[in-house]
């Protein structure tokens, strides 16, 4: 069995900026443990000398010319934002004091 606990799931949800109900915590703990148990077949392998593959195609670092090119107007992006002020994305206060 995987060592995944309900507290682990609560912690991971906090890291991922998700809020779970008590019922979801129970359900997800069981379901995620099932997937991690399935992954025990991988954990059992000795792959110390095998290099990892993060990507199937190694094109190296792709460079382009550092040239000015036309881009979309600022409003094309700002118009999709939930809240905009003075041409910027507006968010709730980040620091705990008045600006």
């Amino acid at each position: 069995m995987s060592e995944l606990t309900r507290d682990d799931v609560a912690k991971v949800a906090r890291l991922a900026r998700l809020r779970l109900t008590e019922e979801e915590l129970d359900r997800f703990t069981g379901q995620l443990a099932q997937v991690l148990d399935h992954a025990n077949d991988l954990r059992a392998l000795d792959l110390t000398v095998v290099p990892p593959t993060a990507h199937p195609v190694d094109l190296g670092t792709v460079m382009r010319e550092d040239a000015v090119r036309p881009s979309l107007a600022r409003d094309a992006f700002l118009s999709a934002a939930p809240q905009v002020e003075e041409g910027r994305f507006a968010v709730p206060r980040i620091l705990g004091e008045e600006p």
Partner: protein
Amino acid sequence: MKALEIAAQVRSGERSAVSVAEEALSAIQARNADLNVFVHVAGEEVLERAAAVDAQVAAGRDPGILAGVPVGLKDNLCQTGVPTTCGSRILAGWRPPYTATAVERLLAAGAVPVGKTNMDEFAMGSSTETSAYGPTRNPLDPTRVPGGSSGGSAAAVAADMVPIALGSDTGGSIRQPAALCGLVGIKPTYGLVSRYGLVAFASSLDQIGPLAHTVADAAASLEAIAGHDPRDSTSLPGPAPALVARLDQGVAGRRVGIVRELVDGADPEVVAAVEGAAEVLRAAGATLSEVSIPELRLGLSAYYLIAPAEASSNLARYDGVRFGLRVAGADITEMYVATRTAGFGAEVKRRIMLGTYALSAGYYDAYYGQALKVRTVMIEAFARAYANADLLLGATAPTEAFALGAKVSDPMAMYLSDVFTIPTNLSGHAAISVPFGHGTSGLPLGVQLLGPALSEGRLIAAAAVVEAGRGVPGA
């Protein structure tokens, strides 16, 4: 009606693109309420686009190989100004300010996009049931799923609303629904089709590809959208390969390996379909042999660590700041939490948490790191198999289309739907699903041909042989 037949008629002036578009829109109108295939149907602009194609023909210009062909676009493909939801509440109402390269290339080939097709939320699912906009039903049996995550695109073609549709395939999301709906579906080599304008799920696995009734239509569609794009840094160099030209090339002298691990555990009818397809290939001059690639058994576990890990990172962008849903909170962290909790469905939350866990301190080496090493092991195992085979053959999905609701409450059972398709995504290779045989309920089954990187021409030639042979007794 097949895409290439429509294009031939439109190009010759025998038929107008406008009449083709009107027919597609009325086919959608007739069945969309029952099947929930399209989440957005374009309006006037469809007929305007079709009229523009007709005007090109009238002016003596060739609109392209897909002239006047109506196409469905999976709802994770961006088209300027057209709603794009990815099957999620968190993107409800979002209209992208740019168009995906694959869509731009379809337009350049004369195609007429008619709307956005339903999908599992952020392409996470194998049945199109995790969509926030309700499940899509299989047009061949509406009590069953069309597969997923490109289930809307598959259903759109299977219901004859459009002759071709684009999907995306991260772990089988084009091939599995194609199999369950009796269609041809291609997962191209990673990097062959630009991902610019495809909403990211797992960036090292995602590829855009076509679904169609015929191998020829799928080949033409892929040829239209493939080729280098400087806007995607993972795009392979070089132009689109000639694929339609390969359709009649046959399989004489080809070495085809039937992969035990891509058949074991499948329903008996599925096993029989693979054997039937092998017989067709042998009769056409291919040399068949049985091979075993035990490393493929590790694919499912590796995939369900790698894909969620990449997704947990990619989906961090849905934070209520720049686009999509925002739910108010007392401070910015509360706003993030409230937005993501309300905006994502259960399957997306599961995968984000799984990925976050697999990447977290203390578990990274045991899970994510180990999965990346398994990816190396699988790529090397495929390379050994391709030293003795030009192509590999197996099943696409272990069963025929299953009933709606059958697997929604059991994620692991759902994940097992992808067991035969996942290895190709991990290796970055190409594969095609072709209809062959039927399940116990009479629903179509698919067989899968796999090839190394950039083997699309070879795959299409072999798929055309299988397609032509599926009428033989026992198929």
